[in-house]
């Protein structure tokens, strides 16, 4: 009787294994033949889940139901302070734009900044184990593979990897072991992603990289990040430079999706 029970268990286990294998092979084959239709379908369904939860969260936050009067007053004060500093930054931004425009007029140069589409971030970059996130735009909105994904004008986060009809999967340039060349202090250096929005560059000591230096993607002129830390010993010929993301990734709500455009500045002859 014990042997019979053992044989039954083993045959049940074998059956479940082959059933699972059959399901897996079917899904993989469907994925291959339809070029990712299963993934895109799952993301489209997930988009409804994310959208609903975000709506509920926003409504709850706005109502202040779970906050005490003291907490609301504290939030109010913090928001007023933040607004005042943003107004100052806006003024500085306007001054810089005016200066930029007058310089371009002097050089007779026209800036060809590619215009993009604003897409909602459905899944936060921190949720994915692959440094990817899902955005709420797809082929229906003319989003294409390899489109740039910008946190703000001039600040690039990564590129689109897969596109469905209404959603797309974007990959961060800081994905682990993603490599590319970047510009730091006008020097072309190899960059390696380290995950969590960060990357590493090995810079020659003579380049004198400083915290706060901007890091650019050469072919686009867009900023990839900012130097956050420089690990340096005086005897080292190369310094290890930590590149921090250009924005607060956990708070990312919207991104701009832009078709790649060779060059951003055209000088009129």
């Amino acid at each position, binding site marked *: 009787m014990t042997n019979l029970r053992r044989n039954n268990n083993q045959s049940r286990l074998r059956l*479940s294994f082959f059933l699972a294998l059959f399901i897996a092979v079917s899904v993989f084959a469907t994925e291959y033949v339809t070029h990712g239709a299963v993934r895109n379908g799952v*993301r489209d369904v*997930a988009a409804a889940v994310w959208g609903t939860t975000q709506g509920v969260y926003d409504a709850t936050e706005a109502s202040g139901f779970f906050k005490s009067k003291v907490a609301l007053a504290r939030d109010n004060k913090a928001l007023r302070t933040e607004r005042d500093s943003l107004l100052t930054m806006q003024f500085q931004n306007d001054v810089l734009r005016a200066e930029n425009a007058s310089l371009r007029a002097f050089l007779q140069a026209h800036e060809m900044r590619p215009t993009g589409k604003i897409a909602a971030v459905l899944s936060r970059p921190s949720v994915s184990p692959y440094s990817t996130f899902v955005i709420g735009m797809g082929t229906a909105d003319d989003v294409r593979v390899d489109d740039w994904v910008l946190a703000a004008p001039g600040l690039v986060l990564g590129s689109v990897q897969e596109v469905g009809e209404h959603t797309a999967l974007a990959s961060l340039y800081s994905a682990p072991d993603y490599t590319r060349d970047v510009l730091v202090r006008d020097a072309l250096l190899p960059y390696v992603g380290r995950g969590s929005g960060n990357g590493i560059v090995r810079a020659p000591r003579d380049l004198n990289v400083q915290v706060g230096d901007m890091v650019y993607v050469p072919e686009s002129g867009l900023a990839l990040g900012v130097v956050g830390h420089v690990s340096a010993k005086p005897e080292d010929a190369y310094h290890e430079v930590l590149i921090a993301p250009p924005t607060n990734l956990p708070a990312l709500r919207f991104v701009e999706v832009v078709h790649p455009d060779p060059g951003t500045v055209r000088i009129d002859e």
Partner: protein
Amino acid sequence: MNSRMMRAFIVGVAAASVFFIPAWIPLVGMSVLALRYPLWEAVAVAFLVDLLYAPHAAFFGIPFPATILMVIVVWVLRPWRAQLAVGA
């Protein structure tokens, strides 16, 4: 709550959490449980993670890496599960 309901509850929480919290947390939790119990649903949760977040060639060119890893934990390490069971 009987064991079947408990199992369904744990799998449901893990599957829902991959949408909102870092996916490695439910994956590690399911892996730990799979080392002790025959938890084939862990493969389904890992597959969901890969469908949502993994690009075509996610991990050094390997597609569906979380799924493959969970299959190894659930099935390949199955013979060692009895040795890992405490008081079972």
